[in-house]
């Protein structure tokens, strides 16, 4: 089922697929939009958003990024978001096909903790359908919407969501562009570390 090229030798390419996951309205599409806007034009392709009326994602958002040559390898990234609404579980599973790294975007709003947990469980189940797990996948947590007065304390969210207790977590206000880049850099690092570990 799961299918992915690690390194395309003819082209000396390494392709990494990063998926932004999390409950609906947590800020996944916002993260991607910010990255796309901040990246120099020549490094990124067009951003495709398959959204319903309003800002809810229907299928996925996607853009490719060409990082350039690093250590003799051309590194290309594929960045995706999933639709967070519970209803779209089937499409979330499809987007996870061949995933290398996940950014789990949690909503800091105290009232969204149940949704965060449900989404994490949903991620676990969907990874399992590809023979993967929360432990074997490169995952970074992002606690978004820290600007909300109703934001839960970080320690609380860590206890609730940091299942393995050793995922890196970042606080963010994605809509203001805060915390988006550090999260992105960390997930790439995690992916590459695993690649090294696998050899």
């Amino acid at each position, binding site marked *: *089922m*799961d*299918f*992915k*090229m*690690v*390194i*395309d*030798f*003819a*082209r*000396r390419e*390494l*392709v990494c*697929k990063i998926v932004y996951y999390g409950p609906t309205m947590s800020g996944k599409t916002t993260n991607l939009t910010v990255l796309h806007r*901040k*990246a*120099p034009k020549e*490094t990124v*392709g*067009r951003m*495709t958003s*398959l959204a319903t009326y309003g800002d809810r994602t229907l*299928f*996925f958002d*996607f853009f*490719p990024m060409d*990082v*350039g040559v*690093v*250590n*003799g*390898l051309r*590194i290309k990234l*594929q960045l995706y978001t999933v639709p967070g609404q519970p209803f779209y579980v*089937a*499409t979330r599973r*499809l*987007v996870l*096909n*061949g995933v290398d790294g996940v950014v789990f975007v949690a909503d800091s709003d105290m009232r969204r903790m149940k949704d965060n947990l449900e989404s994490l469980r949903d991620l676990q189940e969907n990874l399992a359908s590809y*023979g*993967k797990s929360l432990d074997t996948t490169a995952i970074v947590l992002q606690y978004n919407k820290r600007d909300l007065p109703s934001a839960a304390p970080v320690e609380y969210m860590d206890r609730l969501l940091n299942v393995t207790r050793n995922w890196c977590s970042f606080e963010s206000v994605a809509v203001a562009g805060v915390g988006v*880049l550090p999260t*992105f*850099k960390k997930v*790439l*690092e995690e992916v*590459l*570390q695993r*690649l*090294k570990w*696998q*050899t």
Partner: protein
Amino acid sequence: METRAYPGKFVLNDELVEAINRTLLTLLEKTDARCVLLAGADGYPIAVQGLTCNMDIRSFSALAAGAFSSTKELAKLAGEQGFCSQFHQGDKHHLYMSSVGDKAILVVVFDNRTTIGMVRMFTLRTASQLEEVLEKTPGPSEEALGEPQLENLSESLRAKIDKIFDEK
């Protein structure tokens, strides 16, 4: 160095890329299509032949793979194993997509110079040829992963990304 297979992943070497390109070119000529594309099931383009003009290949691939896998799930819900091919008819341009095993999809963009019958026949034939070709893809071998500089790759990438986003 121990070679532990990255689950389900594979490496394409020059020989395979050449074989794939040759096969795609033959399909293009036989069907008189505008262009043919082989995309991985994960949406990444593997090879393309023909007139792509200013088509955004990467988006095209990602969307084709998304549409294809979505239809496959539809098939399952309808009690089918999966639809192995799909046809989308437009005014001037049409799309024919066929699965290549469960690893990839083959997409043919054609116009009214040719017919759906021709396209279907040759595409299905090519899909099974490509399936054989992809069968031969080796797992990540020692030499394959050994050659590029994986040492410090993470650090080097970090520096590169920092530079790209020009962050202090």
